[in-house]
């Protein structure tokens, strides 16, 4: 690796450091929650390695515990990951010229943290060579993703030892609320969240937790609409 590339890789690592603090506890919590829901350590690890998307994984576990059918679990958890398409679109102008295997690997490793770190850097220095941007991106995941695997394993191995009378069922709602609350900033965010909550509760009579999907679609539209209205007024 020539030195501009290793420098870019190291800068990517450095940019990901603040996220390391968050990933460890989340991975551990996922390991604990998945095994206490009845998954084996191997199944829990496979889930974290194949999917690498904390929010979707927590969502899937919650829905399985709610007794939702297979298709609803897959669709709803995938819906949580729709934002990944947006990440992919916004990175494409920067990383699109990279080799196919690199883009495939980048896609597998494209998580919230690596996206935020990479797009911030690429927007600041749009003219850097593609090879450096690729190296930077790999730097942003080099700590975060292995830590996600490792902390899932730690939580899964440890989770077996936790007494089942602790109110662990509530770890998932708390983890989700803690992901969402810090990014509740604009009126559009609040509107989307309110429609999501109100809609899901009002549609709870719908079979197989399908009301959540309907309410989510409405909440997306409302969020985007409120943002558009606010922009026009400004």
């Amino acid at each position, binding site marked *: 690796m020539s030195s501009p590339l290793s420098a870019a890789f190291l800068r990517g690592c450095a940019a990901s450091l603040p996220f390391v603090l*968050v990933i460890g506890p989340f991975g551990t919590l996922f390991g604990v929650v998945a095994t206490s*829901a*009845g*998954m084996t350590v191997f199944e829990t690890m496979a889930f974290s390695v*194949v*999917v*690498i998307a904390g*929010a*979707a994984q927590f*969502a*899937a576990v*919650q*829905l*399985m515990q*709610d007794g939702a059918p297979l298709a609803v679990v*897959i669709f*709803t958890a995938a*819906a*949580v*990951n*729709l*934002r*990944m*398409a947006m*990440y*992919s*679109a916004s990175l*494409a102008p920067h990383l*699109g010229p990279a080799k196919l295997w690199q*883009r*495939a690997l*980048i*896609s*597998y490793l494209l998580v919230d943290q690596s996206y935020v770190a990479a797009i911030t850097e690429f927007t600041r220095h749009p003219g850097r060579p593609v090879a450096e941007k690729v190296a930077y991106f790999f730097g942003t995941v080099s700590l975060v993703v292995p830590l996600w695997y490792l902390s899932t394993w730690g939580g899964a191995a440890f989770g077996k030892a936790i007494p089942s009378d*602790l*109110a662990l*069922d*509530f770890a*998932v*709602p*708390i983890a*989700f*609320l*803690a*992901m*969402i*609350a*810090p990014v*509740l900033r604009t009126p559009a*965010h609040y509107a*989307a*969240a*309110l429609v*999501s909550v109100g809609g899901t*509760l009002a549609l709870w009579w719908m079979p197989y937790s399908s009301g959540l999907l309907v309410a*989510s679609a409405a909440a*997306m*539209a409302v969020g*985007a609409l409120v943002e*558009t209205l606010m922009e026009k007024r400004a």
Partner: protein
Amino acid sequence: MSPDQLPEIIAVKWKLWTMIVALGAATFGLRFSFLGVIGARPLPPMVLRLLRYTPMAVIPGLVAPAVLWPAATGGEPDPVRLAAAVMTVMAGVITRNTLASIGAGVAVLFGLPLLLG
């Protein structure tokens, strides 16, 4: 936890593995969509805007029934869980910090029953 209490999808192995593989494939497909296949063609701003609201649109609705009607209490609203949820949100909004938010929620969830005896 005895096997008969397991959620069906976790107990029935082919369903669990179908879920893991399908969710992995769908997630990879979303991540690879533009980087791999569509290329650097710009998306209409409205589409990007809709996609950006997905976490905010899905997650609160996913959590709401578990907060109001927790399965662990047989679906009866539980003051401790409600207080923990409110505290998690308030701490998150005020501190803008996920870990502080979790800490506040967990403190109420496990601390409040001790205080109440």
